[in-house]
């Protein structure tokens, strides 16, 4: 038994070495996640020590040590001390938990940026909300965050319950149809992180991810300006892209997707105005590339079976034109 506990500790240490990650709660890159990680290490320390104590006592009992000392009266006294000690530790941990919770909640008080996320099966509709409507814009499956700025998230769902979770930045909050939930995130370290839906939502719950990119404030402004622009109309000389736009507007694409700057304005599927500027497509299922985009368009049901994107029949040259056009939408 002792050998096993020891090897367990070794294994744990080895595995803990992999703490870094783009979707790891143990690698905090934001204030909220940092607070939580600190609380975690405290709990782990205290509770780990208690566990070791219990194991030591158990092993001692099994080895038959100090039997004569175990009188009824002594044991009763120890029981009282044990109950008292447990109570004190529990009270302490509860107090730390309350303190961290209060602190983290207050962090969102002075939010300077508001992002509205509406979860759908199986993608994230993201809207950057500004008081001036012409400064608001929509995108999908990505959030860009300025480092050091508290951001408020307004969370809604259009169908079933989902959960918005970017582990490196904060804990999760559910998006519940019929309710509007809120959370806030303050990114502290620039980098690319991955978020994922964390409430079972149907067929493709496993493939409902989003990219969370924290960048310094000037870069964020540049990104925002670029996202505000509508899609450029292809010039007449650029025949392939013009043809691609025509394909877009005369095939099933136009029934579900919006490209600002064209007549396509359906809100059923993700906004594609800047699709080529995203790191991934299909809610994190594939990295962005022309080839992946082509494969996604003609056969999404092999990649993400059960997603709402149907298999689209296109002639090869139509597909090439369409891809050329979409690839220009950075």
């Amino acid at each position, binding site marked *: 038994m002792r050998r096993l506990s020891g090897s367990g500790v070794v294994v744990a240490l080895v595995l803990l070495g992999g*703490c870094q990650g783009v979707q790891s709660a143990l690698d905090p890159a934001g204030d909220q996640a940092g607070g939580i990680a600190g609380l975690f290490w405290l709990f*782990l320390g205290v509770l780990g020590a208690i566990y070791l104590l219990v194991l030591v006592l*158990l092993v001692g009992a099994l080895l038959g040590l100090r039997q004569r000392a175990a009188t009824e009266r002594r044991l009763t006294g120890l029981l009282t001390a044990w109950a008292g000690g447990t109570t004190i530790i529990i009270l302490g941990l509860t107090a730390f*938990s309350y303190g961290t919770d209060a602190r983290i909640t207050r962090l969102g008080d002075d939010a300077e940026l508001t992002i509205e996320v509406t979860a759908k099966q199986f993608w994230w509709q993201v809207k950057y909300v500004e008081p001036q409507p012409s400064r608001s814009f929509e995108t999908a499956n990505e959030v860009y965050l300025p480092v050091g700025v508290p951001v408020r998230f307004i969370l809604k769902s259009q169908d079933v319950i989902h959960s918005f979770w970017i582990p490196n930045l904060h*804990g999760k909050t559910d998006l519940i149809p*019929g309710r509007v939930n809120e959370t806030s995130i303050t990114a502290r370290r620039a980098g690319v992180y991955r978020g994922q839906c964390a409430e079972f939502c149907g*067929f493709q719950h496993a493939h409902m991810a989003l990219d969370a990119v924290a960048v310094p404030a000037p870069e964020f402004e540049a990104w925002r300006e670029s996202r505000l622009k509508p899609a450029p109309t292809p010039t007449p000389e650029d025949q392939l892209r013009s043809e691609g736009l025509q394909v877009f507007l005369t095939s099933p694409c136009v029934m579900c997707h919006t490209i600002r700057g064209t007549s396509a304005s359906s809100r059923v599927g993700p906004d594609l105005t800047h699709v080529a500027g995203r790191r991934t497509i299909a809610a*994190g299922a594939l990295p962005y590339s022309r080839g992946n985009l082509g494969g996604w368009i003609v056969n999404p049901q092999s990649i993400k079976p059960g997603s709402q994107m149907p298999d689209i029949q296109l002639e090869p040259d139509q597909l090439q034109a369409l891809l050329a056009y979409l690839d220009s939408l950075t």
Partner: protein
Amino acid sequence: MNRMPRTVPGREEIARDGPWLSEAETHRRLERTWETPPGLWGWLSTVDHKMVGRRYIATAFVFFVLAGILALVMRLQLASPENGLVSADRYNQLFTMHGTTMMFLFAVPVMEAFAIYLVPLMVGTRSIAFPRLNAFSYWVYLFGGIMLWVAFALNIGPDVGWFAYVPLAGPQYAPGKRADFWAQLVTFTEIAALAVSVEIIVTVLKQRAPGMSLNRIPIFVWGQLVTSFMVLFAMPSVMLSSSMLIMDRLVGTHFFNKAEGGDALLWQHMFWFFGHPEVYIIFLPATGFVSSIIPVFARRPIFGYTALVLALFATAILGFGLWVHHMFATNLPHLGNSFYTAASMTIAIPSGIQIFCWIATLWGGSPRFATPLLFTIGFIVVFVLGGLSGIMLASVPLDLQVHDTYFVVAHFHYVLIGGAVFPLLGAVYYWFPKLTGRMLNELAGKVHFWLFFIGFNLTFFPMHLLGLEGMPRRVYTYPPGLGWDTMNLTATVGAVTLFVSLSIFAANVGVSLFRGQRAGSNPWDASTLEWATPSPPASYNFAHIPVVSGHDPLWEEPDGLPVVSGLRVNQREVLLTTAVDAEPDVREPVPQPSIWPLISALTLTGMLIGSIFTPWAVLWGSIPVAVAVTAWFWPKSPPETPEPVID
């Protein structure tokens, strides 16, 4: 204790146990009175709690194996990223069936099953209370389980998770009848559980042996009593909510439709109001197993009887105040969440007291390392770790990171497998001789234990890290490159190890049933009343009802227990005693074997399955049920009991 008979001499044949009847004659007449008729009819109509208990245990283990195989398939799918072993739809069905089967068809029923078998024996009576209801509960449970698994085989198995959150399980997003089968299964198992809990409460409070006052009841029996009360309060919540779900889906009510005044969160509250006590309903009987096994193998009476009983009460009461910790991520007000954090942390205190008492019992004794004790030690090692990860989950900020990730999967498997399955396996090794008259093989038992312990930790320890590293639950696959690959593979290797260990266990059981070493009535030199009967016990349990004067009757009276006499041997009856002090009170007739519980269960099954498809089934289906239940309760002429009771 020995007095002359009270009938007028010569007026009727002597028909009560006591010194006026020889031992052999007593046994013969009791056997004739209490035995179940042979053959298929007898098997179907038995009301003997031991027969019903044994088949309940066997059925629960069959479901355990089935759900375990599903888990193995799930682990094989997750062994490598973007694996294509099963499709997304099939995987969703697998984890739903695994959770539903384990929670509703294995964990609670197996604990009830041990209660049904052991509680009457431990309290010193001849039958469980309401034996026909007991038989009915088994059939309802069996038919519900068969319904679910046949549905699964027919592609109508549920795929919405064992917790079936709405709106995903609601009428719009769960097309077809899959979720309805889930909801109706809940009805079946909850009827069965409620029936058993009523029987246990009455048996424990009214049918104890004389002298077994409340402070002398074995802790196992306390555990089952407290659990039964928990069942009474918790099960109706899920029965109600699952019925509301069926109504939303079938007839268009709006319980969970926000647009018409309902609320999706209502489901969560109602489900978890049941769901949290449910895990304590599974855990408390297991603590009863541990409290039975440890004193026997430490060779001394349990330390801290009062503290252990109070801990059971505290856990049961606190257990009803914790449910919102499953909903911390839903953005409920912080003040409310804080209350549930405090309650969830507080429940660690009684559990901690229990752990101390068990270790203290071992400390004061000289342990005998037989397989039951090994499993109990394994329980302490595994369950305490699970309980401590539970304390982490009680904190709102920590929970917001690890909720709905593999960290929670690790936590609840540590507390459920550690806290319930380890003691259960120990209990099987411990009570197998009593149930079957044969011992399980010790060497195979030890191999089983070590493989199970190692396999379990290999499977579930890495999941703590997987959750912290970002892997959510209920995902049929995951992308490569996130650092999850090795840990998932390790977990799968562990799962295969668990499978091997359970195969050894199954082989041990199978072979020992026929070739195991024969056991006497008390092979472990234990102290509670069930060990005073032959192995397996006769149909009437005790030829004479014992009188008890302490918690460890067989240790306190090694030369034979005093008994009371005067119960009839030509009619089935049990002795009822007062609730607190167990003074003899009245004699109560016990029913004969009856086929009506089975027929009632069949008609009820028809009604419940029909009501998945049409609400008219509730109306038309209730007619056969009414007929069967009327036949069941049709009054039979009561046996004459002119004499007051005994001495």
